[in-house]
């Protein structure tokens, strides 16, 4: 086989691999969503229990994805978990918005659901959401159920 043909075939091979990488980045993985956080603003919320919430878990309002969790830490003074979320800048929420940790489906992943209130002012960067609802922990729910059953008798 001539030198030129070999060069062309190797070139096609490399180009095919690059096309595969492009497809894996754009179509298969979340590479496209990395740029979205640039314009967003950060808000925080305190929870008694975050359950299985993780960094990069979605934040949604009314079922629409509006941002993602960027950090989860524990506050030593108030003994609560502090969740930092990045909200895309095109979405605005009133100051008295409440946040809850919800589960998608019965055994699905957990996400932060925002429930807008009626305040006229909007949440700004760095604000803290005051009204929160912790994650549902199955053991506690079962425990409460058994306890109330025992009281009935």
């Amino acid at each position: 086989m001539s030198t030129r043909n070999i060069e062309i075939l190797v070139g096609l091979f490399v180009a095919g691999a690059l096309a595969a990488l492009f497809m894996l980045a754009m179509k298969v993985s979340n590479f496209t969503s990395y740029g979205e956080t640039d314009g967003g603003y950060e808000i925080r919320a305190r929870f008694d229990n975050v359950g299985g919430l993780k960094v990069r878990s979605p934040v949604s309002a009314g079922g629409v994805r509006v941002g993602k969790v960027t950090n989860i830490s524990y506050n030593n003074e108030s003994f609560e978990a502090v969740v930092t979320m990045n909200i895309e800048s095109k979405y605005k929420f009133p100051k008295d918005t409440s946040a809850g940790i919800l589960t998608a489906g019965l055994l699905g992943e957990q996400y932060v659901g925002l429930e807008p209130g009626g305040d006229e002012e909007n949440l700004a960067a760095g604000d803290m959401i005051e009204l929160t609802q912790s994650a549902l922990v199955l053991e506690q729910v079962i425990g409460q159920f058994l306890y109330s059953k025992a009281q009935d008798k």
Partner: protein
Amino acid sequence: MLLDFLQQLGHRSLSIFARLGRASQFLLVTLMALPSVVMRPFLLVKQMYNTGVQTLLIILVAGIFVGMVLALQAYIVLVDFGAEESISLMVSLSILRELGPVFTGLLFAGRAGSALTAEIGLMKSTEQLSGMEMMAVDPMKYIIAPRFLAGVISVPLLALIFMAVAVLGGFFVATDMLGQYEGVFWSQMQVKVDFYDDVVNSIIKSAVFGFVVVWIAVFEGYDCVPTSEGLGQATTRSVVYSSLAVLGLDFVLTAVMYAV
């Protein structure tokens, strides 16, 4: 009797260490000869044709079927739980994290690694390597280094192609055969597959596999006993050792990359 056994045991273990020492020394000399490949890019392109392009067909066929089988198996299991929209997630994560790099490493060892061992082993048996040395041509620079570099570059490229084709194979089964919606397939995947954690890690994995497979293949050829029997044994060893190395290293790399 017992003494004979002990003597043999010692002899064998010493020869294993001697081989390991020769292999490390060989790797060092090869790495030092790598800069000379940059001066002769055509040698590299020709070897990328021999190792990469020639392996492409088996990679494509294997990739399509692996993706299709995974999608089908995922459906059979997940449909019982009403979770069949997670097919794409299962297919893409298992392909990206494990099967893509491992399959590519194993197929490369069988298709290209054995050929490298046989080629270099025959060059040694027919004294072409010594002949080059007599002409003051360094076989490390002309023969070994281009093959080594071409293999290390080819394996990640082949793995990328394998993974893309496998995901497309899964897509074909999920949408055309099982009637899933296209949008569900892609969006489920994009939510959970991370570019850096999954795609970049699998490229790193396959580069490591390529390095190890080519190292073993080239060394076995260079170190073979220069007889027809020795050449056969070297080729067998090349495939067996590199397959085992890929599978063993895969566990170590997974533990390092994904263990929490």
